[in-house]
């Protein structure tokens, strides 16, 4: 996309089309959708209808009985998921959700209003599963299922990031993400996924992580980071892999191990655990926290989630510690118990350093690292020099899944305030449970759909711009690997000059380690001295120091 037309994208056309939504055909706009799934990736997990296809072709090569497959699939899910049946029935189309969606705000496309996105599916439900729809058709909001409807589903259900902001405002509590998820499940029955989702799913199924890192590659990546830590601190760290009998298994998103700026967060984990002398192990089998299966179908999500617990069992650990991942936590907190649980072969998590019992993880046995570290700081177990982050004016983005799917609001803020002197909140309608999505979640963080990413990410970027202009914020902290992958492009486009970091990178910058040499740079090899001088600190800032 043209990166010099940011001002033009602001001219969003909110006027409705002249024709009603059912009579307005879907137009596939360049930059708004991902490439289609590849046959090899569907074959790898035994998914139906693997074939070469392109969403740009007229013929999507659907199975001959595609209609029967979809309607049977809908029936099966209406019987299986009470939530789906309820969400199909109870919407009164009040429109409270409409302008809460970052994709509607950013695109002005009415079919990105959560109510209308759901209506794409609901209209078919009415036609085939309700008496009024069968009798009165369009008058009752019902429509025939045609190939064009399937194409419309594919276009719009992969233009929803399942962030659930709309659900916060729904007076009936309809979870639109659940509707998108069922929509995607039905599409997957026909072999309709995207390459950016199906590829990582196949990789994770075959090799344990989305990127397809083989065991020796995964290990060598971490060894590279250890080398960097040695250069920075003079400390040689020797973590273990696949070690039986370790007390804890640590699961991180593979993006942290492989891609910048996540790698600095991974260095943060390594440094923190070393300093604590934690009895833990990495795994090259359960080498992924994220779960792109979750963006495909419940069944696929379950299959991928299973390996984390299988590995915990095989290694005989007591409990699981999880890194700064986004949707992994929605899976663990809201789906794990009925998918693969209960994990009663593990123990109720207990911090070996502070003795704190993490009672909220009683059934999943899986503790979020932000809770773990906040607890360490609370018990004064870490020596921290927050001045080492003085080059940064930090704001915090609540990742959709950890905030709305888990309620983690205070812990990351508590950590940041203890390791940074300068922290600023974005406007309250854009944080905590009302946080705006990065615009690239649920498998939308590809490059060919950059247009929709920049449009959908606009509301979040706008809030960052506000604190940049007001407080000089230059760093956007978060606790999600998709955030770390997606935000650099979004910031460069809308708010140049704002970097992106995980919270444990900030922790590691401040962490005073036993036997370390004097630090002259931060984890990014940026000179501490130079950086401090280049940041303008006003009298007002000084008053705000934590």
């Amino acid at each position: 996309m043209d990166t010099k037309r940011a001002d033009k994208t602001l001219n969003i056309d909110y006027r409705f089309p002249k024709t009603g939504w059912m009579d307005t055909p879907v137009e596939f706009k360049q930059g708004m959708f991902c490439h289609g799934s590849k046959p090899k990736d569907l074959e790898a997990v035994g998914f139906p209808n693997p074939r070469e296809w392109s969403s740009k072709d007229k013929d999507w090569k659907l199975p001959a009985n595609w209609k029967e497959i979809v309607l049977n699939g809908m029936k099966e899910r209406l019987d299986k998921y009470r939530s789906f049946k309820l969400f199909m029935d109870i919407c009164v189309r009040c429109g409270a959700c409409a302008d809460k969606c970052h994709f509607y705000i950013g695109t002005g496309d009415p079919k990105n209003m959560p109510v209308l996105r759901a209506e794409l599916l609901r209209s078919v439900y009415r036609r085939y599963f309700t008496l009024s729809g069968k009798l009165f058709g369009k008058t009752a909001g019902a429509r025939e299922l045609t190939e064009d409807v399937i194409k419309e589903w594919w276009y719009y259900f992969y233009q929803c990031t399942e962030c659930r902001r709309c659900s916060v405002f729904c007076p009936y509590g309809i979870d639109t993400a659940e509707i998108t998820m069922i929509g995607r499940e039905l599409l997957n029955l026909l072999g309709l996924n995207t390459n950016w989702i199906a590829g990582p799913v196949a990789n994770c199924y075959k090799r344990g992580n989305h990127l397809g890192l083989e065991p020796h590659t995964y290990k060598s990546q971490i060894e590279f980071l250890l080398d960097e830590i040695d250069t920075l601190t003079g400390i040689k760290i020797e973590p273990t892999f696949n070690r039986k009998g370790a007390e804890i298994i640590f699961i991180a998103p593979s993006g942290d191990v492989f891609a910048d700026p996540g790698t600095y967060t991974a260095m943060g984990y390594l440094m923190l655990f070393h300093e604590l002398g934690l009895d833990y192990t990495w795994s090259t089998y359960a080498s992924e926290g994220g779960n792109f299966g979750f963006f495909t179908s419940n069944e696929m999500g379950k299959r991928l989630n299973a390996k984390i617990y299988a590995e915990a069992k095989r290694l005989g650990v007591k409990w699981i510690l999880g890194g700064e991942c986004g949707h992994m936590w929605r899976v663990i907190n809201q789906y794990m118990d009925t998918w693969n649980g209960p994990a009663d072969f593990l123990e109720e998590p207990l911090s070996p350093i502070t003795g704190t019992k993490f009672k909220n993880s009683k059934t999943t046995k899986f503790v979020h690292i932000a809770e773990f570290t906040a607890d360490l700081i609370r018990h004064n177990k870490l020596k921290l020099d927050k001045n080492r982050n003085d080059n940064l004016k930090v704001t915090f983005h609540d990742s959709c899944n950890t905030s709305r799917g888990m309620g983690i609001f205070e812990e990351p803020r508590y950590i940041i305030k203890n390791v940074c002197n300068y922290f600023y909140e974005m406007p309250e309608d854009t944080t905590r449970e009302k946080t705006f999505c990065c615009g690239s979640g649920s498998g939308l963080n590809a490059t060919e759909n950059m247009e929709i990413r920049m449009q959908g990410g606009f509301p979040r970027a706008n809030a960052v711009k506000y604190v940049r202009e007001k407080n000089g914020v230059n760093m956007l902290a978060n606790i999600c690997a998709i955030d770390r992958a997606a935000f650099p492009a979004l910031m460069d486009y809308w708010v140049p000059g704002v970097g992106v970091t995980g919270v444990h990178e900030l922790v590691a910058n401040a962490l005073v380690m036993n036997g370390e040499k004097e630090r002259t740079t931060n984890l990014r090899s940026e000179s501490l001295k130079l950086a401090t001088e280049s940041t303008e600190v006003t009298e007002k800032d000084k008053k705000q120091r934590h």
Partner: protein
Amino acid sequence: MGSFELNGRTYQTDEDGYLVNIEEWSKEVGEYLAKQEELEMTEAHWEVINFLREYYEEYKIAPMIKILVKAIAKKFGSEKGNTKYLYDLYPEGPAKQACKIAGLPKPTGCV
């Protein structure tokens, strides 16, 4: 999906022009792909391509840029081991352009 013909043989590419089967790569294929990127390949360009292919051979994935930078510095001297040097050779970015010419697939996931 796309494809191109070279010396009487057909090669499959993905939607972004990346070679589908890495086994089909040869120096001629690399030269063809470089031409599509409007790049004049020099010895220095090939050093990077060869390193990428060796790395892929061992690890089955394209390296992160900072691993590439460090490895190039170690192998060809510190004056070549920096991001600027790599971007001078491959203006669209070593990850995008050099990997494409080397026939390596793009990584997908939280990247």
